[in-house]
């Protein structure tokens, strides 16, 4: 590989970003530096320094995360490359329990002396804060795993792919968009590699290598005469995969009104389709408000699942730890305790899964050393469980954590974050075409748009990207200005059909925000195309 191709354009266009967002992603590096790892023996030595220092200052528990977070970002606008950046964030976070209270401190000086100092600071913070604490922290027991490792099962490390290959792909994408009549096009390739080392006084030394990738574009079509404009985004998903996601494969294409994708993505095909969709959107008629049966594609439904099922089943929200920011939850403990709370129709089965291959949230162990697994949240329409971490497990009668702990970086304290939360496909054979055939008055929605939900997750409103009117079992052209409003419980109870597993696909959020200071996490949501009966649709057109 030629060095010139490999680091092609690296470091360009970053000036303005850096002036504003100091250390937002990390420090720019030569992309070849990304391929250098940190020796695991050295990490274990550092970890022991932290754990011993914390214990000697009176900590009853301590963990350390030595994190190296790599980002690569390539962006193009129309016929030019806007920016290429490679960043690295490397440092250490130490978390302790002392006097029954949590304490945390972090340093980017990765030396034994500085790490010991951070551990001591964490103990000092815990002791100072214990004066205004409530109940002492109660940790679910966790056995130590000794020295173990986990690697994401990727086929092609995105950081080993020359930047020139990525730039060429994005320039191709933009060319196709412009040739097909797009007024503007932005395309982006984003790759992330988290190299995380975790150790705790429970006796775990866990080395993990996690990869995520997100190719995307937005095209804008402007009709100067009417003054209208429409945008269409790629139908790609952010994935917990390597660059193999960008190698198209026939069996991963789902045909229909527009091609959608499973585990492999065809960016060139999708951008061509997107420009045609934009043309149709400009000409589409405005929706008549009223009740419609909605047929929701997985490229749309993932976000509805994320907001209305993923967030309200987070135990920290239920308990009030997010009350000042993200909010609380309508799925209160009393509802769960009845074992009868009717969340949705009998068809609705939702699982939390931290192990799903190719998903954004897949890891071997979470950020407090718990081995990850899979569990039911909603079983046959009934609320059966939440998403918890070690210091919450006892509250819902669990004797072990569910492994939902995550921190966005070494300098952020880990806390409860959403697992991959997915709607299970229907058990009966059912295709999208067969589902649509039975709909008299409906709207088929592909891709996500505007989204908003209240702080307890009752009332939501979702837009979408492409809206197809269904009349008497047939697609009757596109609609504009569609948004649906519903109450979470009523909505999931209106679920009347789910396609079978051959239609199951992952969508996901690359940047789910929560906490103060806010932290981002990445999470996938799978589903097959699903039908909801009689949902309230409003018209969002206005004149200014």
């Amino acid at each position, binding site marked *: 590989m030629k060095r010139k191709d490999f680091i092609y354009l*690296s470091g360009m266009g970053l*000036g303005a970003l850096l002036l504003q967002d100091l250390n937002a992603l990390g420090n720019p590096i030569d992309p070849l530096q990304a391929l250098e790892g940190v020796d695991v023996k050295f990490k274990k030595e550092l970890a022991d320094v932290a754990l011993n220092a914390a214990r000697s200052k009176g900590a009853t528990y301590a963990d350390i995360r030595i994190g190296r977070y790599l980002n690569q970002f390539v962006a193009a606008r129309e016929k030019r490359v806007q920016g290429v950046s490679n960043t690295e964030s490397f440092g250490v976070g130490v978390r302790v329990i002392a006097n029954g209270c949590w304490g945390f401190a972090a340093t980017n000086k990765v030396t034994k002396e500085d790490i010991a100092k951070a551990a001591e600071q964490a103990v000092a913070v815990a002791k100072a804060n214990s004066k205004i604490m409530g109940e002492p922290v109660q940790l679910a027991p966790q056995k130590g795993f000794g020295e173990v490792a986990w690697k994401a099962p990727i086929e092609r490390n995105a950081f080993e792919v020359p930047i020139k290959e990525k730039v060429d792909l994005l320039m191709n994408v933009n060319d196709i968009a412009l040739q097909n009549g797009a007024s503007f096009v932005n395309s982006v390739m984003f790759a992330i590699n988290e190299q995380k080392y975790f150790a705790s006084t429970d006796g775990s030394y866990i080395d993990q290598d996690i990869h995520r990738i997100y190719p995307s574009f937005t095209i804008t079509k402007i009709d100067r*005469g009417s003054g209208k404009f429409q945008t269409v985004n790629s139908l790609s998903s952010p994935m917990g995969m390597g660059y193999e996601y960008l190698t198209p494969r026939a069996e991963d294409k789902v045909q229909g009104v527009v091609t959608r994708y499973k585990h492999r993505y065809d960016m060139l095909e999708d951008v061509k389709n997107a420009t045609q969709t934009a043309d149709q959107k400009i000409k589409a008629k405005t929706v008549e408000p009223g009740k419609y049966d909605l047929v929701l594609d997985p490229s749309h439904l993932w976000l509805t699942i994320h907001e209305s099922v993923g967030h309200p089943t987070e135990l920290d929200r239920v308990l009030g730890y997010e009350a000042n920011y993200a909010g609380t939850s309508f799925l209160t403990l009393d509802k769960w305790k009845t074992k009868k709370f009717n969340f949705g129709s009998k068809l609705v089965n939702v699982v939390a899964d931290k192990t799903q291959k190719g998903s954004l949230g897949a890891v071997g162990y979470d950020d407090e050393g718990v081995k990850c697994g899979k569990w039911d949240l909603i079983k046959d329409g009934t609320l059966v469980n939440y998403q918890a971490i070690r210091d919450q497990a006892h509250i819902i009668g669990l004797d072990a954590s569910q492994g939902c702990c995550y921190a966005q970086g070494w300098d952020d304290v880990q806390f409860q974050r959403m697992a991959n939360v997915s709607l299970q496909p229907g058990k009966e054979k059912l295709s999208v075409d067969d589902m649509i055939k039975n709909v008299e008055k409906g709207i088929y929605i592909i891709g996500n748009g*505007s989204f908003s939900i209240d*702080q307890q997750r009752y009332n939501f409103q979702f837009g979408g990207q492409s809206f197809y009117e269904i009349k008497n079992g047939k697609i009757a052209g596109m609609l504009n200005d569609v948004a649906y409003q519903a109450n979470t419980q009523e909505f999931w109870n209106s679920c009347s059909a789910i396609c079978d597993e051959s239609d199951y696909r992952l969508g996901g959020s690359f940047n789910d925000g929560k906490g103060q200071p806010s932290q981002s996490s990445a999470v996938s949501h799978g589903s097959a195309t699903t039908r909801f009966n009689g949902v309230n649709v409003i018209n969002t057109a206005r004149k200014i």
Partner: protein
Amino acid sequence: MAILSKEEAQAILKKVIGFSKADACEVSLNGSDGGNIRYARNAVSTAGQISVMSLAVNSTFGKKTGTATINEFDDASLQKVVKRSEELAMLAPENPEYMPLLGPQDFPESTTYNAKTAAMTPDTRADMVAKSLEVSKAAKLEAAGFLENSTRFNSVMNSKGLFAYNKSTNVSFSVTVRNQEGTGSGYIEQDFNDLDKMDTLALSKIAAKKANGSAGAKAIEPGKYTVILEPLAASDMLGNMFRGFDARSADEGRSFMSKKGGGTRLGEQLFSENINIYSDPFNPELPSSTWDRDGLPNKRTQWVEKGVVKNLSYSRYWAAQKGAQPLPFNRSIVLEGGNQSLEELIKGTEKGILVTRFWYIRSVDPQTLLLTGLTRDGTFYIENGEIKFPLKNFRFNESPVIMLNNVEALGKPVRTGSGMIPPMKIRDFTFTSLSDAV
């Protein structure tokens, strides 16, 4: 070490520029130092303290630019970072939007720094949170909140002689107070440059009053109502719109500022005649840096006068394309109001809805700036000039552009999230559904 004085920053920047062999070199040096404390269920949950400093070098040959950064400041490290940025610049393609560096500019000193805020310690923060907890515990309510303070410096120098430096402090506090039954919730947030202005006890009392007052909310039919938006609620609606005062996206036809048939709405009457919006980095209540990321001075700028759009912001590149003067956008936005207090606005209202704040606002249609979101933490029914009873929360679908055409009265502006914003009385505000959320 993270906060350098003007002279210290200047000395490092000068040294770095001295190592440059590029046609043009721009170096920025920034640092921040601060801490936070988070609490919930009437007890501390997490806390942190972080200090960072970093230097970025932009080297340019012709129109080819490369960037590199470093967080070590010995001579060898500084030489290395300059060299690395020059290597990267050699490999870069020409940037068609590259603008030559600006020469020396005159930037007056800002008023963004306060020594007392800069001196805050973990103990200061713990004491301030303890005051908030006093309020919630005494009233048998539950508080969840966040207190954060930071001191920053930003500096930039280029090989044409431009040098700019700014030092600032900020302390921000927010608290949600809920009753134990979960049927009432109140909220307040505030930020200042000056620690002396921050009173966590008084602010927590306001949130506690709203928590008690909002319990037992009644449902009324969604529809169009006269609303009184507290400054925080008004600010939530307007933040998006302020970011849209950008000439480039308007010229490109993809903004609410775009004109049918091409061009922008500059000079058009877009809002009611009582709307005047300007920014001023020297506003004593909301000071900001006197220079922007393009290296241009921030000056007092009128954006809207008597409802007419007077200015759009232009980057240096876009200004050169359009033969306009570059004009930076400044975050110290002031929406002028009157002298009436919130209480006086309520007194003058026959029937209406008082909104404390909005939540989860998202753009529904960028063309009309239609937004959706919900009321949160205290929504009340007003009749004959008095608050009568708490209301269940609503979802709204409304455009701030339409809203600023329906302004009946404006109160006295106060510092909130996106600027100095007055409480506002707006007619025909569109609520589209009810929410059970508290």
